[in-house]
């Protein structure tokens, strides 16, 4: 019996490494999460993933994977200063990009508790491993955006269009404000309410098959299961329009949610898309328990910005003629 268990573990580990789940398993600090009535590890509550740690490691930190506590504090101080929008820009363009007072922002003030210098933990350089093809598409998209910044609404960012925020992802990345999530669990389901654009991810746990391949959704199609105290969610069926760091519609995402202490939900994800990335890559973001509540973020209904941006572009074109 013990031998078989050992073999299963080895097989599982092999399987994980094949799948590229190279994220270090969360420290089993002896914390045992409570259980829901139907026996799921309880990850319910309102969580916030705001952090100043960037997804990719900044160039000037190349080779440095982890801050010392002092370095982290210095970094946090510097970030707080440079991010402070109450400090006016040096020229008009910079100043207008600052948008509005600091009070409106909520990016967090801390780096992640692991003191890592990037959210990406694999590859070790903390960078997204673009393939040549992926980089080419990314460059082409950038060039297109330069030539057609606001020809029509489709040229604007998904967030500008009120279609999808990075906080919803998936994967769910921290944003400049409202990086809040509420998780609810019911028998057979885990639901994640994303504050931004009131997106809800309802993840069935019954191992049903994915939607037909012809069906493509902005948030993809998620299926979950529990591995010990970790909720593992696999998402496919993305659209080709989702644009997550240049990924194609065939991107496959594995997310792992583990409650590592009463106030921390460790969120790890691995992205696979051979058409875009030379190898799978992984990131780890701690989510912190928050008192909530989640407020309504109706977006499209009051989106005066789209006519403003398009009208502005038309006015600019008329002026340059």
């Amino acid at each position, binding site marked *: 019996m013990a031998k078989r268990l050992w073999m299963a573990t080895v097989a599982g580990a092999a399987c994980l490494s094949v799948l590229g789940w190279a994220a270090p398993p969360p420290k089993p600090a002896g914390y045992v999460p409570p259980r829901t009535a139907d026996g799921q590890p309880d990850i319910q509550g309102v969580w916030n993933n705001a952090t100043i740690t960037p997804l990719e490691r900044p160039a000037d930190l190349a080779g440095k994977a982890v801050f010392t506590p002092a370095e982290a504090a210095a970094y946090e101080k510097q970030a707080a200063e440079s991010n402070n929008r109450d400090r006016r820009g040096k020229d008009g363009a910079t100043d207008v990009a600052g948008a509005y007072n600091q009070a409106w922002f909520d990016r967090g003030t801390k780096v992640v508790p692991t003191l890592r210098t990037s959210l990406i933990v694999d590859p070790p350089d903390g960078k997204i491993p673009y393939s040549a093809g992926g980089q080419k598409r990314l460059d082409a998209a950038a060039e297109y955006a330069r030539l057609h910044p606001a020809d029509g609404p489709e040229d604007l960012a998904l967030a500008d269009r009120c279609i999808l925020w990075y906080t919803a992802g998936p994967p769910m990345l921290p944003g400049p404000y409202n990086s809040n999530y509420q998780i609810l669990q019911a028998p057979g389901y885990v639901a994640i309410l994303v504050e931004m654009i009131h997106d809800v991810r309802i993840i069935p746990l019954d191992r049903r098959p994915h939607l*037909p391949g012809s*069906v493509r959704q902005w948030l993809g199609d998620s299926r979950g299961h529990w591995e010990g105290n970790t909720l593992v969610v696999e998402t496919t069926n993305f659209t080709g329009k989702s644009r997550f760091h240049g990924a194609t519609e065939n991107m496959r995402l594995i997310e792992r949610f583990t409650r590592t202490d009463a106030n921390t939900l460790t969120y790890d994800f691995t992205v696979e898309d051979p058409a875009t990335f030379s190898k799978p890559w992984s990131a780890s973001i701690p989510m912190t328990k928050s008192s909530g509540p989640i407020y309504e973020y109706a977006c499209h209904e009051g989106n005066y910005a789209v006519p403003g941006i398009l009208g502005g572009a038309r006015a600019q074109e008329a002026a340059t003629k």
Partner: protein
Amino acid sequence: MIAAASVAAMLSVTTLPAVAQATISRGPRTADGKPNLNGIWQVLTEANWDLQGHAAAAGPMVPLGAIGAMPPGQGVVEGEEIPYKSEALVTKKANFADRLKLDPEVKCYLPGVPRATYMPFPFQIVQTPKFILISYEYANAARTIYMEDPGPAPVDSWMGQSVGHWEGDTLVVDATGFNDQSWFDRAGDFHSDALHVVERYTLHGPDMLMYEATIEDKNVFTRPWKISMPIYRRQEKNVQLMEFKCVEFVEELMYGQYRKKPAKQ
């Protein structure tokens, strides 16, 4: 051994669709002992937009905005893909591209079979031993299911000719005699006048009918294919079919150009 058998039984039960597991009640019976299908029924599915699984999409009419958009559906086709012959698939795609002009539903034409079943409108079954009437709210379409075969249909028609029989507790309807004018959905799925549909209606408890239709048309498909979906009983107090005589609503569309004073575009 016994344990193994019961485990196997458990496994097979858990692999059945949830609806099949719900067949505890055989449902009500008519005086002649048949499952009683009388009542007002309606599907809750997006099959009318596209039988196959589909993501939500914008509609063909910009002014309609979200009202005209296509709601997403997981698909009701067994095996997901409708097995078109290659040239027929071209027609289906052309149908979809030009659906505003070509979809018979746009013009309030009779829905045909099986589309009548999953239009987003209720229908009423009036069941008698020799004849079963299905009255559809959409376009006041109607079909009589003959429980005794009246012989081949003399001419082709939109709703075809339906002959029924009971296989155990399932009403099996063999439908032929169709013209080639109706579609299966708004996605341009179509058929020829060789269409042959076999429908199966099975009560699962008093308030749900399981519906299956096997579709065969040698001119269009490489093999027969099947759709299935539950149909639910409408249970509002005093529920009744109301009129959806839509001809009046399409007169401007179809004849407006011939008016003495055409409306301004």
